[in-house]
């Protein structure tokens, strides 16, 4: 659905996006992760049609996004900082969204509004708390019946219950209507629960882009112990990191875990446990080292 090909964007001399490529399938929930300043918000602003790339293409369903009114009617955006008109209350904003999005579902909006009893729809949105403003943004976006939802740090500022409630709303829309979601967040634990695809960004580039399952099976944590010193591992086992605690060695191995397990098994270890890595661990190991310097880990 989303195709970003060789996109470069410079702000003065600073290269914010450097020949970036990104691909999001229809119906996917795509998590965009990366350290601060990696360029996540910048690429999201390109996808919203706010920024225009210096070079490359940004398309959704094969159409260029920039200045494409018809295309934009099919997706909703919740930026990290949400905009509401001064003096506008939730109902005013609903009317505005209704005018902007042809598929806006007022009944759905009212139904969702009932799920958030703390929000007074007649109160000016700008006077609501940050969390409540986010909730209003979600209500408006979901009621717009989008095919694609682009979320930049969406649940920042929400309490855990509300986060869960928001995600369940989105997930049900995904399940019922095949909604595609692109979400950027620092909360990797949360993304791990909801995303099926992940793109890891750094220095304006997508370093890794694959399904979460693939990602989690491509890097493995193996805890092993030998009688005496650990023998040298075969060359075909690519070790990203090795930590020794007493006689127990923890190694992070890149590649197919079965092959590493088989090779180490032939070395007669006293103990061998193969453990999956969390997304957070993968993120850290992929971007680990000083200043997130990328090591030779690109597949």
């Amino acid at each position, binding site marked *: 659905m989303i195709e970003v090909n060789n996109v470069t964007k410079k702000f003065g001399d600073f290269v914010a996006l450097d020949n970036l490529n990104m691909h999001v399938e229809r119906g996917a929930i795509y998590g965009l992760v990366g350290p601060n300043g990696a360029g996540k918000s910048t690429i999201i*602003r390109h996808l*919203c049609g706010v*920024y225009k790339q210096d070079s490359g293409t940004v398309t959704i369903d094969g159409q260029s996004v920039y200045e494409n*009114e018809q295309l*934009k*009617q099919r997706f909703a*955006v919740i930026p990290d*900082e949400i905009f509401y008109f001064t*003096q506008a209350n939730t109902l005013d904003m609903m009317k505005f969204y209704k*005018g902007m999005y042809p598929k806006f579902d007022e009944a759905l909006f009212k139904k969702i509004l009932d799920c958030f009893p703390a929000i007074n729809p007649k109160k000016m949105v700008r006077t609501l708390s940050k969390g409540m403003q986010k909730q209003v943004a979600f209500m408006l976006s979901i009621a717009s019946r989008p095919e694609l939802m682009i979320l930049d740090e969406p649940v920042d500022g929400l309490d855990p219950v509300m986060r869960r409630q928001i995600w369940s709303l989105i997930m049900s829309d995904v399940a019922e209507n095949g909604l595609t979601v692109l979400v950027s967040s620092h909360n990797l634990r949360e993304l791990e629960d909801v995303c099926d695809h992940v793109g890891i960004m750094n220095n304006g580039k997508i370093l890794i882009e694959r399904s979460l399952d693939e990602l989690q099976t491509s890097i493995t944590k193996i805890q092993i112990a030998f009688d005496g010193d650990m023998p040298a591992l075969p060359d075909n086992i690519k070790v990203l990191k090795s930590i020794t605690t007493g006689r127990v060695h923890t190694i992070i191995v890149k590649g197919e875990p079965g092959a590493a397990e088989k090779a180490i098994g032939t070395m007669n270890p006293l103990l061998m446990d193969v453990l999956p890595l969390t997304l957070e661990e993968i993120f850290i190991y992929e971007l680990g080292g000083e200043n997130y310097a990328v090591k030779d880990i690109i597949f």
Partner: protein
Amino acid sequence: MQSKTSFFSLVLFKKNISRTWIVGLLEFILLTIIMPIDFIISMAHFDDYWYAESGYTKTAMWYESISYKPIVPFTFVVAILLAGITLWYLFFKRDNYMMHAFPVSRKSLYFTSFISCSIVGLLPLILNAIVLTVIAVAEQVHAFDAIWYYTLVGVVSTELFLSIAFFSLMTSGQIVTAIVFYFIFNFLYTLIEIAFRLTASLLLFGMSESLSGLTYNMASPILFMGSNCKVSTYTTYDDLGQIKTFTHNLDGAGYLLIYAVVAIVFIAIAYLLYKAKKLETVHDFISVSFLKPVFSVGISFFVSMVAGAFVAGLVDSAHYLRYSTRFAIAIISTLVIGCIIFYATQMMIEKTIRVFSAKKFGFMICYTLAAFVAMLLMRTDVFKLENKVPDAEDIAWVGIQSNYTMVFTDEEEIYSVRELHKNFLADKKELRDVNVIYQDVPGSTISFKYKLKNGKVVLRTYSVVDTNSEEVSDTYLSATEPILDYLNYPARIKEHIIGNIWNNCDITDMTFSTYTYDEKIQDFHSSMESFDYLTEKEKLAKNKKVYEAVLKDIDEGKLFITDFGMESFYDEDDVLYNDFSFVVYNSEVPYFSDEETYWDYGWAENGATYERSIYTMLTRDCTNILHALKAEGFYEDDNQIITISEYNDIMGYNDDPIIY
């Protein structure tokens, strides 16, 4: 709902109106107060107003009132308020990003915003015109053309200022800066002209009065429209203050058409800027790339040029400088100040003080060289400002002002004055330094003023010193004496100082004051013989005899003589304290006043005048006049004649210096 026409979005339109209607309401309230309510009150008390006493009809009063009601400054403020509120989102990252993430194109955003601003800005004007029309019908006042022309001026100025406001708001990412730019763009031409005139007045030879005669150009609409696009009235009164004639005009329809076209051009340019605008430039001082060097170089050059000239002027005021020295100081100051301002503007544009890179230094060097060349061009008078003597066929009249004022309209005289001026400028190298070379020689000034047929004025003023001084050089004399010879020619004095009716007039009045010292009060008694016992005919005959003596003294070079060494009449030793004046009158020939023509006082007069009072400072050397005055009984005793110097001595005014 999104309209099918992609340049308009109904939902955005409603949203814009919901935020700006208050401005429109305020505009309507203010217009209602200054026009309909004011008119209703005036109509109700019409008979009590001076209008009725002066013979005005209600219709004439309406025309007169509408001609004074301001509309252009009003729309100037309304336009920026409307545009600022509507395009507010452009200046805040969150608002800007979100608005452009909505399914609405910039075309829709722009034109919907412009349409909503126009409607809110124009509706009060139209409503006001309708209300006024209804009142006019009710009061049977037939000033409909004025009401609707006034409204048309408001409509065009609103659209023009809105277009400039939209343009300004596209050029910066900061709302305050954008509003400042709006003001600058409206006054830009005048500001540039003032900068050049100010510099010229401080540096260039003969241009010390450059700041006077500034006229507003079409390029400064806020200043130009108000005085050129309006309902104007012209009234003449009789001797009793009653209206003789009343006419009105709808001025500047052609200008309105031009401004309407300019508004369309600005709307288009502003749209193109918006289309090309990079949204990441929010909060940038200037958000349009090509304007950055224009701003930086423009501000650096104009501010430093004026500042440099001021520095030179300050030094000159402390100690007279030669022309070349003054210019050298100005050039150095301009270049140094220019470099500082160049970097300051870079800091504003880049939003950092870290702008000292090799690249910027290179730009600064290029700018400095360009500024240096510009100043050198000014110094060498490449633009022909100092040496400018207008072509004879372009001149309506030329005036010379020194001790007296003369204005020449005759073709031959214009030619002669041009030649005198050209001859003067041919020797300017020494003349421009007279204040330094001849510091001890008394001096004054001489001005040449050319009124061109296109209405423009070329004015040059020069310092000159006494030609009778032994210190002055032959070069100086050859440049200045021909002018004095020309001005002191008796026939010319009669024609231009007494006036065009000098040889065909009655002297309807003549006064001469005499002074007698009174020991009791230790002051002078002043008296004046009025000849009340004589008939008018006898008085005219008496006056005529003295007038003939006046002409004789002029012929002998004793009266109305221009002398470059006379700083003030009051400083001259032999000038009389006695006042002498007479009135020339011809009922058939209108009097042409050189003085009023020169100073453009014509506007103050309604209709032709046939008489003029001539006042002159006599000297003891005016023997023909003094003899005639005595012979005709204006005074009896020579002791009643006293010079200013003698008066001051007797009164003790010369004893101690006056301390201020």
